[in-house]
C-alpha cells in the first residue's frame, strides 16, 4: 500500500505540475486550459520521433520543448487576438476546441500507433525501509515543489509578475497603462507549454503513453487545481501529489484496481460541491 502510494507520486508530481499550469492560466490568462496536457504531448512526441531517428536524447528534448512552446504561443496568440474581451467560460470553451484540434493534429503528424517514449530516469533512486523510491518519482515531486516556490516568488516579487497580475484582473485597464497584454499572454502560454512538456517527458516513459491518455491527464490535473481553488499554488501542488499517491495506493487493492481512474472524478465532484456550496446564484447581486 505504501509502496503503491510512493510509486503513485510520479503521476502525482505530473498532476501537480499540470495543475500548476492550469492554475496559472486560470489566474493570469482567464482560461481553464483543457488543452494543457495535449500541448505537452506535442513536445513529448516531437522528442520521441527525433530520438528514434538517431538524434541525441538531450537535443531531442530541447527540440520538443521548443516545439511545444511554439504551438502554445500560437494558440495563445489566437486567444489574445480574437477572444481578448471574452469571459472565462467562453475562453475555456475555445480551449476545448483546441484540445479536439490538437489531438487530431497529433494523430495526423505522429500517427496512431502506440509509441515507446525513450527516457533516462528509469531506475530506482533509493530503498528506504524496504520501499523503493524511483528516480522519476523523486524528480516529479522535486519539480512540483520547485515550480510552486519559483512561481510564487516570481509573481510576488518581480515586475513582470506584478504586470501579469494586473493584466489578469483588469486587462483593459492594464493595457491602457502600457502593459503589453498580448505579448505577456503569449509568453504565459509558451511557458506553461514548456512546463507541461517537461513533466510529461518524465512520466511518459513510465506508463501507457498514447496521445489520448497523456492528453486526458488534464482531468486529474483539474482535480489538483480545484484543491487549490484554481487560486492557491501550494494547494494545487499538494492536491496533485495526494491524488497521485491515492491512485497509486488503490492500484494495490485488487478489488479497486480497475476503478482507480474513477478517483479523479470523485475528487473533482467532492471538492467542487464543498467549495461552491454557497454559490446559489449566478451573480453576486
Amino acid at each position: 500500500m505504501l509502496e503503491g502510494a510512493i510509486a503513485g507520486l510520479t503521476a502525482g508530481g505530473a498532476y501537480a505540475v499540470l495543475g500548476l499550469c492550469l492554475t496559472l492560466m486560470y489566474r493570469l490568462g482567464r482560461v481553464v486550459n483543457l488543452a494543457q496536457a495535449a500541448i505537452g504531448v506535442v513536445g513529448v512526441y516531437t522528442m520521441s520521433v527525433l530520438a528514434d531517428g538517431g538524434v541525441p536524447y538531450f537535443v531531442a528534448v530541447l527540440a520538443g520543448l521548443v516545439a511545444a512552446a511554439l504551438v502554445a504561443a500560437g494558440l495563445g496568440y489566437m486567444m489574445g487576438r480574437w477572444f481578448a474581451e471574452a469571459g472565462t467560460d467562453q475562453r475555456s470553451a475555445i480551449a476545448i476546441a483546441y484540445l479536439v484540434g490538437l489531438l487530431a493534429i497529433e494523430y495526423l503528424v505522429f500517427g496512431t500507433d502506440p509509441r515507446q517514449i525513450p527516457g533516462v530516469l528509469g531506475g530506482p533512486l533509493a530503498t528506504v525501509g524496504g520501499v523503493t523510491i524511483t528516480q522519476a518519482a523523486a524528480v516529479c515531486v522535486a519539480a512540483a515543489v520547485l515550480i510552486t516556490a519559483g512561481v510564487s516568488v516570481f509573481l510576488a516579487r518581480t515586475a513582470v509578475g506584478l504586470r501579469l497580475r494586473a493584466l489578469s484582473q483588469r486587462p483593459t485597464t492594464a493595457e491602457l497603462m502600457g502593459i503589453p497584454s498580448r505579448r505577456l499572454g503569449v509568453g504565459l502560454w509558451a511557458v506553461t507549454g514548456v512546463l507541461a512538456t517537461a513533466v510529461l517527458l518524465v512520466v511518459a516513459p513510465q506508463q501507457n503513453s498514447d496521445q489520448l491518455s497523456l492528453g486526458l491527464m488534464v482531468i486529474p490535473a483539474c482535480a489538483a487545481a480545484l484543491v487549490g481553488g484554481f487560486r492557491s499554488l501550494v494547494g494545487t501542488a499538494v492536491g496533485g501529489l495526494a491524488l497521485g499517491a491515492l491512485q497509486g495506493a488503490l492500484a494495490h487493492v485488487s478489488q479497486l484496481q480497475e476503478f482507480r481512474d474513477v478517483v479523479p472524478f470523485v475528487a473533482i465532484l467532492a471538492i467542487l460541491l464543498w467549495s461552491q456550496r454557497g454559490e446559489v446564484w449566478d451573480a453576486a447581486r
Partner: protein
Amino acid sequence: MRRVEMTGPATQLVGALAAIVVLAAVVPQYWLFLATTALVTAISLSGLGIVTGRAGMISLCQMSFMALGAWVVCELNVLAAPGGLVLWILVGGLAAVPLGVLLGLPALRLRGVHLAVVTLGFSAAADVIIAAAGFPGATTFQQVLRPAFIGTDTAYFVFAALVFVAGAVAIRLLGRTRYGTAWRALRFSERATAAAAMSVPRAKLAAFALSAFFGGIAGGVLAGQIGVVTAQNFDTVDSLILLVVAVMAGSEYAGGAIAGGLLMVFVPEILRGLGVPQDWGSLLFAVGAVQTLSTGLSMSEDLVRRFRRRGAVSVPEKTGRRAAHRASPVTPERGERPVLVVEGLSVSYGRITALSGVNLVVPERTVMGLIGPNGAGKSTFTDAVTGFVRGATGSVTLDGRRLDGLPVHRRAAAGLRRTFQQDRVPPGLTVAGFLRFSAHRRVSTAELDEMAAFLNLGALNRHVSELDVGSRRLLEVAGALLSRPKVIILDEPAAGLAHAESMELAERLMEVPARFGASVLLIEHDLEMVRRACAEVVVLDFGEVIAAGPPATTLARPEVARAYLGDEVALA
C-alpha cells in the same frame, strides 16, 4: 408573408416526412446505413442542444448517456425481455434520465467551467466503468434483435428518421412552454428566472434529464443499428467532439442537429474516400467551433439571421409621446389594509450589518417610496424580502401569508414580484415571449397590446436585444405587472430613462393600484419622481428606517437631509 407560411411547422413536418420516404427509396444501402448513423448522432445532438445550446451549460458527457441507453438495450436483448427493440430503446432512454438528473445536481451550484470539468471527469470515469463492465452480449457476438418491420437497413433508416423527427417536434413544443423560455432566460440570468416565478433547480434538472433521455434513445437506436456494441463506440473524445460540433452547428435547432449529425458522419467518410486521414475532420470541427465562438453565431443562427433580415418587417418607431393622456389621479392615494408586512428584518454580511430590525408596512393599492443614500440597504432590503438572501432574520407576510423560508420563485408566485437594478431581461427572447414568461399565467394578445400601450413598449415582435436599457426596464415592469402581483418592488426603474420619461413613468405608476390592484414599492433616487408618484415614503440609512410618512413632510425633515447631504448642509 407567404414565405413564412410556406415554412410553417406543419409544412416543415410534411416536408421532412416526404424527404425521409424519398431518401429511403433512392439512396443506396451503404449510404443509407451511414445516414442512419448520422441520425443517431443528430438525436444525441438534439439533447445536447437543450443543455448547451438553450440553457448555456457546458456538458461533456453526452456519450456516457448514449452508452447507458445502448447498455440497457443490449441487456434487455440478452435477457430476451418482452416488448421488442422499440420498447427497449424507450426503456434505455428512460434509464438515462436518473443519471442525467444526478449529473444535473452539481449544476445547481456549479456553473460554466466548473460544470465542464465535472462532466468531463464523469465522462472519463464512465469510460473506465464501461471498459471494466463490458456490454452484455459483446463477448459472444449476440446481435441485438430487430423486429421484422424494421428488419432491413432501409426500414431501420426510416425508423431512426421518425425517432429524430418525433424528438424534434417534442423539443419544438417544449420550447414553447415555460420551460423552453426558462432555459433561454437561465442562460442570461438565474436571478431573473427565479424572480419570474420559475424554479431554477427544476429548470436545470429538466434540461439535464431531457438531454440524457435523448442521449439514451440515441444509444439504443445505435445498438439496434450495429447489433453488437463495444466500449469503443463511446469514447470520451467523442463527447468532446460532439460538444464542439453542437456549438458549431447550433444543435438547439432541429436543422442544426441534423447538419451536425451529417457533418460528423460524412466528413470522415468523404475524407476516407479521398484517401485523406480522417483526423482532418476533427480538426475541421475544432476550427469551425473556434470560428463560431468568435462570431457568436452558429451555422443555424447565421442562416436564421440572414433569413430574418430578408423577411424583416418594418418596425414602427417607438412614439415618444403617447397619443392620448389618460386622466391620472391628481394626488397619490393611500389604502388602509396592510398587504406587505415586514417585521424586524435584519441581514448581516460577516461583521457588517446591512439591515437591522427594519419594520415596514405597505398598504394595499398604494404607491410607496423607499429612498435613502447609496449603501443605505435598499437593494439588500429588496433581496431579503424577495428571498434572495439566505440567513435573513425577521418575518415577511404577504396578504396574511407568511413567506419566511420560501424560495424566490414561490414568493414570486405568491404575488410578490420585483425588478432589478441591473439589466436582467434575457436578450434572446422577443418582447411578447418575455411578457408571457414573466406573466406566469395565460395572457391574451389583447392584454399584451394593452400593456404595451400602457407602458409604451412598442412592437411586441421585436427582440429584447433590439431595445435600449431604459425600454428593457419598462419591459421588466410590464412583465411583473402582467402576473397580477399583490406587491411589486421596483428597484430604480427610471435609471436609463430621460427626465420627461421618468415623470411619465411616475404618472403610470400612480395608475397601477387602480388598474392592476397592486401596491408598488418604488426604490428611486429621482426625488421629484418619488414626490409625484408616492403617497408615502420610507427613508433608510445605514440599514435602519430613519423616517416615514407623506413625502412632502418626510423629505423636509432634518435627519433625512442629513442622511443625503451630510451634517454641514443640514445644520446650515
